[in-house]
């Protein structure tokens, strides 16, 4: 579904150049929930944002669903983005619209008329469990509900891929779990391919069959999640997983 070849990006600042991504090679299969982990600044969000070109890579190739994303012109890119959903850490809903109009936003952008939008919005709202909130304003919703709107909006045009940029990092653990279970459910029901970027390793352990670990813009581990958690090959992988286990081990065991 997603094939990335030798993707590189350099951040040029007044202080010099910092490599953000270095020759990333990655394959993500259709219907997978693929996890991308790493310390802050490892390049995992940058990588995700390069996939739909919210950020431009400097070199390399990205093929999503047979389309060579980096070669698309502005117009074709906008079309391609309609087939790639995305959700964000801070939801990025529009406060000037109610829930229904937020969900309908991509349909409106695609030029659908009111009747078409209305039917689809109701369908999407029931998919994410928000049928009773259609007339609410984003400011009246809890964090979890906001992310549900974000998901419904991202899925409105029926994309085959969903990019999640730290989508549960601003939520409390029980709410984060509900959102992840919703994503898992959507993955199974719709065959949606999900790319999940997070700094929380336990999320990847619980929900992703395949994963990659990034450090300083390079992939240091990649493969089945179970195998990597059992026996990480890289030093940074060992370190990260070790920290993760100490942080999330039950308190009485630590003492």
């Amino acid at each position, binding site marked *: 579904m997603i094939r990335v070849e030798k993707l590189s990006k350099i951040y040029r600042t007044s202080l010099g150049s910092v490599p953000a991504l270095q020759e990333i090679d990655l394959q993500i299969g259709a219907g997978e929930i693929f996890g991308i982990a790493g310390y802050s600044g490892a390049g995992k969000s940058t990588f995700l944002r390069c996939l*739909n070109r*919210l950020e431009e890579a400097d070199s390399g190739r990205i093929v999503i669903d047979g389309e060579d994303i980096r070669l698309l012109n*502005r*117009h074709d890119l*906008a*079309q391609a*983005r*309609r087939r*790639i*959903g*995305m959700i*964000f850490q*801070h939801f*990025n*809903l*529009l*406060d*000037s*619209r109610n829930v229904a109009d937020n969900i309908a*936003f*991509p349909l*409106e*952008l*695609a030029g659908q008329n009111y009747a078409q939008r209305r039917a689809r919005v109701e369908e999407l709202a029931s998919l994410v469990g928000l049928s009773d909130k259609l007339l609410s*304003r*984003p*400011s*009246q919703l809890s964090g979890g509900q906001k992310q549900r709107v974000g998901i419904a*909006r*991202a899925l*409105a*045009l029926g994309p085959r891929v969903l*990019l999640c940029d730290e989508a549960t990092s601003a939520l409390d653990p029980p709410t984060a779990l509900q959102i992840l279970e919703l994503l898992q459910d959507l993955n199974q029901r719709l065959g949606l391919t999900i790319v999940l970027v997070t700094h929380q390793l336990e999320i990847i352990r619980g929900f992703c069959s395949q994963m990659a670990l990034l450090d300083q813009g390079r992939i240091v581990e990649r493969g089945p999640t179970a195998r990597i958690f059992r026996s990480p090959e890289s030093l940074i992988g060992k370190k990260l997983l070790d920290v993760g286990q100490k942080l999330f081990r039950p308190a009485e065991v630590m003492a």
Partner: protein
Amino acid sequence: MSEDLPEILGVALLETLYMTFGASLIGLLMGLPLAVILVTTRKGHILESEAIHKSLAFVINMTRSFPAIILIVLLLPLARWLVGTSLGMHAALVPLSIGAAPFIARVLETSLNDVPFGKVEAALALGANPWQVIRKVLIPEALPSLIRGITVSVIAVLGLTAIAGTIGAGGLGSLAIRYGYQRFREDVMISTTVLLVLIVQLTQWLGDRLAITFSSERT
């Protein structure tokens, strides 16, 4: 003149209102697009273009650095060419609007810049083109703040009309100078001032009400 005072005041009031709201409206029609261009051509934004941003910013800064009275005098030939005369309230609209536009552009630029860029990115990720981002994200999301900015601008334009009044534009400013100041008519001075205060208070009240209406819609 005392007997005529109410009538003279009434005419001057209407002239002032015409110039203030007329110039504000034309200034807004010029200023809002300029503000949108300033914001969207900024580095990293949807229509990034350093050349356009910098040259527009330069022109706006230059226009704004003229003292109001000088700018108005400089623009009088343009008013004569467009309206046929350089005197009266219709002619005054030309320099007032052109004087107001860069000010309004800067005020509205601030409001548009305050829209979190994540919302713009979300729209782009959903396949929005730049025009859709401007029309469906930037302007609606900034609306309450834009209304506050427009209120500030209208009141600033009211001040400009008083200055224009000193060189033949008519209105309350002109009345205050010609009768109140130059002929020592205290009653004219006081009544024009009271009217100006009332206009400012009413404008601010209305602007606040509108801004609250549009922001309470979202809570």
